[in-house]
């Protein structure tokens, strides 16, 4: 079986990405990808940072969530018929605070119903579990770039690891080797915001090309590899 080339962390103009949804799908389809997940931000609006994100429409909200999912599904059908590429709807629950120690970003892949980012962590995880989504802790360790450090989940991993299906072991150009030391399930993603981010770390999966198999493969952490995708 040929390994599936996957990217599970992609932003579009629905939040702070610079490329429209349809073009993102085409960009990945033209590059031969097998599975992608569109994961625009759902930001907590309970503090000034979140309020700003909502003000500048950098977040998917309860109001436009249905439209967002409908458009992702429309693009998913187009991507399947044209490129045989699986597109899975998702969000990135972004709990932003001033310090990285308090902040956490969580990918909820294969989401069906809106989950507000203002809920506490347990409630978010339980809601996500109820929808049978794949829960991924993203960029959980120190990054070189200012503003993307989200250390809360890693610092509290003893408490939260039971809810988390996988951890991002590589994000764009950064690798968090501490995740492999702890033997957690892992994926690698581009955290795509701009076209140049297409060239970054990616996940390879040895499974069937359908959402169920993909989720199972990641959760079981078997047949998972990462690759640095370069031109």
């Amino acid at each position, binding site marked *: 079986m040929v390994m599936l080339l996957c990217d599970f962390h992609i932003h579009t103009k629905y939040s702070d990405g610079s490329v429209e949804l349809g073009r993102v799908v085409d960009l990945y389809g*033209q590059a031969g990808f097998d599975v992608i997940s569109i994961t625009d931000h759902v930001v907590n609006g309970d503090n000034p940072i979140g309020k700003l994100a909502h003000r500048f429409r950098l977040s998917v909200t309860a109001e436009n969530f249905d439209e967002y999912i409908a458009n992702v599904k429309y693009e998913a059908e187009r991507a399947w018929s044209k490129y045989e590429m699986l597109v899975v709807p998702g969000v990135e629950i972004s709990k932003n605070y001033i310090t990285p120690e308090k902040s956490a970003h969580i990918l909820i892949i294969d989401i069906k119903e809106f989950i507000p980012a203002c809920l506490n962590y347990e409630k978010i995880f339980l809601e996500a579990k109820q929808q049978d989504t794949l829960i991924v802790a993203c960029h959980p360790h120190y990054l070189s770039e200012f503003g993307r450090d989200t250390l809360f989940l890693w610092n509290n991993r003893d408490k939260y690891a039971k809810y988390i299906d996988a951890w991002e072991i590589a994000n764009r150009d950064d690798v968090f080797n501490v995740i492999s030391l702890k033997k957690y399930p892992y994926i690698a993603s581009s955290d795509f915001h701009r076209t140049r981010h297409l060239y970054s770390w990616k996940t390879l999966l040895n499974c069937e090309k359908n959402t169920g198999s993909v989720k199972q493969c990641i959760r079981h952490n078997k047949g998972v590899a990462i690759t640095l995708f370069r031109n």
Partner: protein
Amino acid sequence: MEIFYVFAGITIFGLICYGLQIWAVRSTLKEDKKVRGSEDGNASTSQLFNFSSSQFQFPPVSILKPLKGLDDNLFDNLASFCAQDYPEYEIIFSLQDHNDPAFKVVRKIRDKYPEKDISVIVERCDLGLNPKVNNLIPAYKASKYELILISDSNVMVGNNYLKAITKHMQDPDVGLVSNMIRGIGGRTIGSILENLHLNSFIAGSVCFLDKFLKMPCVIGKSMLMRKRDLEVISGFKAVKDVLAEDYVIGKRMHGIGKKVVLSNYAVNNVNEYWGIRRFINRHTRWGKLRWRLGGIKYLSELIGNPVFMASLPVLLWEPSKITISFALLVSFLKVLGDSYLGTLIYDTENRRSGESPIHPFTHSPIHYLLSPIKDIIIGFIWFVPILSNTVVWRGSRYIIGRNSVLSPMPESNIWAWRYRVADAIKARLA
């Protein structure tokens, strides 16, 4: 003030040359209409390309596609070759290694078109210094048919492309058919500049050389030829160490008395997400190439850049009312000229005949306002080849010699040290 008059004179001469280029493009594109001649406005596609009026049996063609990395729109580019309305042809995708990201795309294409004769060859070949030729040699060996078509991976064509170009092979004296190119798909500043340049300077120069000077100026995006003619000019081995293999093949073909035809069927060169640096790098490399190929004739490119010539007095001497007004007037004329050329090129017969697929994203009229800026950048780039005779290609540095013959950069001597120091400084700055 005398300086201004000198530059104004050169600029006016450049504008006249530019006018001739527009005329050449127009005249090249009009040839289809001549073919159509007495046909009425409802001419079918076959009539447009004069397929039905001849006894020409479309011969089978081997399409050789050398691939390296991901080009913009790669999937659709390759798929467009699988949708040809043509009786018999094979496509050979050729790569140097399995880890190339294009390999995955090619496999998907093969799966999507199981009814087509598609082969994928992955073979490392280090026969020469030109990586494209190295990539072509294994594909050429595997090709089945007498007619071979070499086509770059960033080219997208309509479904009548093969018919439109093979018709030229009715004439046994024709040795090579190349095509007009139109840049499409610009979504970033770099790619818009690239497409503007392709649709003005490159299209204009190629048609001008073909129409007025009868000089073969082959661009390797699309080259159709017979194997036996290629063998007469010593095959790919003759160009394995040459940077401009397309130009040299055209020149050699012309040298053995074969006709080199510029088809008015415009192929789409898709450039969507280029950065400005890539645009500058490419045209610096192409400039070096033309400098080594053309020698003193390279000067005509500077004279033929009216916007740059009109801007020099403003940039280097006095920004007075008259110099600024003149530069603005010339820029305005260039914007108008480029818009007209763009309209001509986008509206070619193959597009009007309702072919598909055509990339939906062409140029917005507002993009042409960038044309003078592009010309000024190109004007400054013009000087680089005179100062440097080396190119970095696919990660290796080469010295370009006469006729664009490549030689590896020496490991020792002052030249090597010069670049080592430059690289060290760049690395520190990065």
